[in-house]
């Protein structure tokens, strides 16, 4: 998966590059609008992570440029402004998703992968992880070809883990992924625990290995090791 990250904050750019690379993506970077447009013209990407506030202009111009090329590239806007207007303008311009700073890295990865899935396969593709198969648009998974139904939250949780394999996911990041603004409700961590317990049970009961590891005090990790 080839990603272009357009971000003028060098430190943040470095972190994003590192994290996305560790997640198995090929990343290129652009720190200015001009550089971003140049790269878009020259190369093809699966997705572009786009900061709106660039030193030499609005990142929205990159979206314009891409639309004239009519390519299949997914666009995830990263903005410091969590405003409804910005979000609507961005999405109306043709962006696929919108994430506000400060974001959790695994969340960004999940958004990118989801956008690419939607763009490239219209969500019909499967995600295979050893003996587990998940179809993103349907709330079900196959364990060794046996259909297992999932609740909405379990499904979202599983997709989040599958997007971030072998990564430690903090409880905070999972809570925000599952409940957004309600993430800080008092007992959301307990719910994560019970969801994971249920998910793990559904997997192991149907013959899969226990891939969901608890990292004490930190969170969880999906790993086949």
């Amino acid at each position, binding site marked *: 998966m080839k990603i272009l990250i357009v971000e003028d*904050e060098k*430190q*943040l750019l470095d*972190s*994003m590059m*590192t*994290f996305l690379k*560790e997640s198995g993506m090929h990343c290129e970077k652009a720190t200015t609008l001009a550089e971003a447009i140049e790269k878009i013209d020259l190369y093809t990407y699966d997705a572009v992570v786009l900061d709106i506030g660039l030193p030499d202009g609005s990142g929205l111009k990159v979206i314009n440029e891409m639309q004239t090329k009519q390519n299949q590239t997914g666009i995830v806007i990263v903005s*410091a*402004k*969590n*405003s*409804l*207007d910005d979000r609507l303008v961005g999405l109306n311009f043709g962006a696929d998703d919108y994430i*506000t*700073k*400060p*974001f*959790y*890295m*695994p969340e960004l990865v999940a958004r990118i992968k989801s956008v690419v899935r939607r763009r490239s396969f219209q969500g019909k593709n499967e995600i295979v992880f050893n003996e587990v198969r998940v179809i993103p648009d349907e709330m079900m998974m196959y364990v060794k070809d046996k259909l297992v139904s999932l609740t909405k939250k379990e499904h979202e949780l599983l997709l989040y883990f599958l997007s971030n394999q072998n*990564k*430690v996911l*903090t409880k*905070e*990041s999972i809570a925000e992924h599952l409940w957004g*603004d*309600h993430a*800080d*409700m*008092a*007992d*959301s961590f*307990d*719910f994560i625990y019970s969801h994971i317990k249920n998910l793990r049970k559904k997997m192991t009961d149907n013959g899969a290995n226990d891939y969901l590891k608890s990292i004490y*005090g*930190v969170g969880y990790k999906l790993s086949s090791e």
Partner: protein
Amino acid sequence: MKLLNLTNRYYIAIALVLLMVSSAFLAYRVLYLVDNEVSENILYEKMEIEKQLSHQKNIQGKHIIFGDRIEVEPLEKFTTFRVRMIDTTFYDINLKMRVPYRQLTYEQLLDGKSYRIKIAQRLTETERLAEGVLATLLLVALDIIACFYFLNRWFSSKIWNPFYRALNILKTFDLQKGGATTFQRSKVDEFNALNAELSKLTDKVSRDYRNLREFTENMSHETQTPLAIIRSKLELLLQGSNLTETQVQQVLSTLDSVNRLSKMNKGLIMLTRIENEQYAGMQMLPMGKMLRKQVDDLEMFISSKNIQVHIDIDENVLVRMNQHLAEILITNLLSNAIKYNRENGDLFVRLSADTLEIANSGIPPVLSNDEIFDRFKKGDSPDSIGLGLAIVRKIIDHWGSRIKYEYKADLHTFTITLPNRVVGKV
């Protein structure tokens, strides 16, 4: 009390006292002079009579009455040199009543015979005079006071007019809307000076308020990127496998602080946005339906505490409001009512044509009814940011509505008066 009435009251009180004292003095003086005059007249008459009697050779012990009230009465013998002057009354045949007189009585020897002479002078005129003087004075006093009162009112309202205008401008001055205040120029230097200072003051307050708002907004926005950097670095650190247990805990608690900062920022940005009228678009919203949906969304948190939800909703209530703000309002109130609820507690959601009421059971409040809506006031819940209810109140203010909080019968109750409501078919 109005300044005008107060000054008038003092003026009238002083005028009354002065008028009373001076009219009393005047009346006394006039009466004294008139009285003196009467006495002098009698004495003068006495001299005249003495002169005339001394030329009269043929009285010879006769009882004589001159005119109306001069009487010469022969006596057996001379008894006294005393001259007496008394005030008395005589019956007046014409007037058919007793009339006051001053009478001078003395004895005199004429050709070896003694006579008692009485001279009387009517006092009626002097009494009337006194009454006249008093009446006139009273009339003048009343005139003066009335004129004083109305003129003072008129002058004052004319003179103080710029002051009241300025006061009105200040009353309608709205910091939220800002804008320059223009005061009318007046003939009075003091008022002009006051207005100039007020103008300066309101300008400064508006400017400061604007700056503060800009500062809050910029600060909150500009902090987001560094926060994103900190969070991303910490997340990278966490992914590494070479951290000790203690280091992991330190990274986690740092992440936690970053989360708090980030939430605080988001709350502050929300507050400034509402202040900056960035949620202007209004539409008719089915309040009942929105409430039900949000209760459903929060179902998991509700059932985990085993909270009983009591919903009493008039489905026909439509409110005119910005949709995004309405959602935030409902979310904040509901999650507040769940977060601070107790195990097996109750949650009431009542929507009628006039009010929306959200109530939850819970421990008695630590904060007062007003404090509860203040920024960063969070009672004894250290995990909270303390902006949720501040945002609620900001939305309510912006909406032009009112919210009331009270704790009674074990229930924390928030009551919102619905403006712009329309009851009809949804």
